[in-house]
């Protein structure tokens, strides 16, 4: 049996909510308690990368704080086998008046790491951070990017058995982010245990073997990353607010949008897709272009379908887009609808008009399925 690095047993945690004067004698006993976590149970195997996802206020941060020993549970217990290094607040212990070099040692000491060990690794930390020029100036002169880079360098170059990560992947510039990802991957390959808490679902899917889904302090799912992320996305889209950017007074109204996969079933990756958009034009309109945009959960645009410009007669009608192959990966997207004139004037717009769910079809890694074939060719001498 593989050894277990982290055992979380029936852990609950509540916070006291103070109403008004928090430290006055009279009010002290009236404070109510809210539960941040209720009866959480899970194990993390050695060498496993576990992701934790959930909406804001679900208890993810509390869980991290418990694991990092910043606070303690009301009931239950957590056993951690090995040295846990938290990259949750990199550079948290930095003292602004001290130089980068002094802070490296201070920071390591905060993690309980002996000076001798830091001295041994100092060159590697310095090299990784790329801050050799400024290492002897006080960190108060550093930019926020440099600050975090130094913090990440210290935490990631010291040997920990278990690494706790929280949104740290959004650190520094692109080049440094790539190095962070490489370093995390390297740590992962070396058999260390990783816990990643993030809203960056793509990173969670890429790094983790298993994902926990937490909502309102309770664990509502545990399983492979793709399934859990999808479950999370479905629960999250229910609460997506309608946008006040919606616009509909250019003489045309958008009535709705529907999607159909092969034979009218759910859309699947790698299979044909048809999208039907219904509208109602008040008058005859010239040069009208319809756009259906597919949006990642992160809010970035994934891809779009654009119609050629057409003249519309007054009255209701449909635009049908036919895609021979749905190339985007399984998951939950939202769809924005836009009607413009060819010159670009917006006639109508509906943000997050509908959710768009893609079921697994042709299974591939990554974000897209590319239509392809492969053939062998022998080299001739």
């Amino acid at each position, binding site marked *: 049996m593989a050894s277990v690095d982290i055992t979380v047993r029936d852990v609950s945690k509540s916070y006291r909510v103070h109403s008004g004067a928090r430290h006055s004698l009279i009010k002290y006993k009236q404070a109510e308690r809210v539960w941040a976590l209720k009866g959480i149970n899970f194990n993390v195997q050695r060498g496993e990368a576990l992701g934790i996802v959930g909406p804001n206020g679900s208890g993810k941060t509390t869980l991290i704080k418990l694991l990092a020993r*910043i606070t303690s549970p009301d009931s239950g217990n957590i*056993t*951690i086998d090995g040295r*846990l290094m938290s990259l*949750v607040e990199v550079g*948290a*212990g930095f*003292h602004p008046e001290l130089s980068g070099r002094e802070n490296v040692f201070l920071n390591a000491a905060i993690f*309980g790491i002996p000076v001798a060990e830091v001295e041994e690794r100092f060159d590697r930390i310095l090299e990784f951070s790329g801050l050799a020029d400024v290492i002897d100036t006080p960190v108060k002169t550093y930019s926020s990017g440099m600050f975090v880079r130094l913090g990440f360098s210290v935490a990631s170059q010291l040997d920990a058995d278990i690494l706790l990560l929280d949104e740290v992947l959004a650190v520094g510039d692109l080049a440094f982010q790539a190095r962070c990802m490489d370093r995390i991957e390297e740590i992962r390959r070396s058999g260390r245990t990783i816990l990643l808490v993030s809203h960056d679902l793509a990173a969670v899917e890429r790094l983790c073997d298993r994902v926990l889904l937490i909502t309102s302090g309770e664990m509502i799912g545990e399983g492979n990353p793709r399934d859990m992320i999808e479950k999370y996305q479905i629960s999250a889209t229910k609460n997506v607010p309608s946008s006040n950017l919606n616009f509909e007074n250019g003489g045309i109204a958008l009535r709705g949008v529907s999607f159909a996969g092969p034979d009218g079933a759910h859309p699947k990756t790698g299979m044909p897709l048809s999208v039907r958009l219904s509208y109602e034009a008040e008058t005859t309109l010239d040069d009208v272009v319809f756009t259906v945009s597919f949006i990642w959960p992160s809010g970035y645009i994934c891809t779009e379908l654009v119609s050629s410009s057409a003249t519309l007669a007054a009255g209701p009608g449909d635009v049908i887009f036919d895609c021979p192959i749905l190339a985007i990966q399984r998951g939950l997207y939202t769809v924005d609808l836009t009607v413009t004139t060819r010159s670009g004037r917006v006639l109508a717009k509906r943000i997050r008009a509908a959710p768009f769910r893609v079921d697994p079809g042709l299974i591939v890694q990554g974000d897209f399925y590319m239509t392809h074939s492969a053939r062998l060719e022998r080299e001739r001498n």
Partner: protein
Amino acid sequence: MAERSVTVIRSGAPALSRVPDGFRELVAYRELLGYMTLNRLRVRYQNSWLGWAWAVLQPLAFLAFLTVIGSVIGSRSSLNVPYPLFILASLAPWTFFATSLSTAAAGVLSSRSLIAKVYFPREIVPLSYVLAALADLVIATALTMVALVYTGHNIPITVLELIPISLILIVYATAFSLILSIAQIGFRDIAIGLPLLLQGMLFTTPVLYPLNAVPAQWRTTYELNPLALLVEAFRGALIGRQTISAGQLVYAAIAGLILFGIAYFIFKTAEPNMVDEI
């Protein structure tokens, strides 16, 4: 492969085992305590123009004031050293005690951002303030000795007594610092009330007057206060006229250790949920 340490995180129920566990962990984190203490000292003087000279200048300036005052009110014949030196010798341990308490009490609150982000044994924060204050005590004591020599006195052999006296004083200051810093989180009143408490302590401690100035009928009660004994003993050792018996010092040591044990237990019990209240 190196042995892996196992950490168990439990709910914050009081348990006596927190005390030995806490000590063990404190030993593991001793380097952090060193760094924090050093940083407190370094940062204190770093951006000042005179820098480390301040550490000597402050007691020196005070000595100058006392000399002026002493020359005005006249030297008391009962003392074997000039009035300024008499005061300086007891002011050093008192300042150490008062500075420890007031900086440590505010320290945990002002370190809240660090405490909320990283785990480390929290007592390191108040301890680092006590140790930083200790540096001032060493400087002030050395300065008093220099002044003694300068005014034609010999450094008495009794200065060796300063070592055990200081150790007991450190235990005493640490105990108070731990209790105040943890109480400060729940009751911010401490910050307001502390100067008052220190004033009260100053007048019930023989800092500005000799112990034998206390009326005889009050002496027994007065000498129950370990701090009074320690300050008087400190001065006695420094000026070579010890009035405190070994038995009284043992009493102060035992009282200090008991107080420290209670303080550490309270601190470690409150520690796990400290972040939520801070």
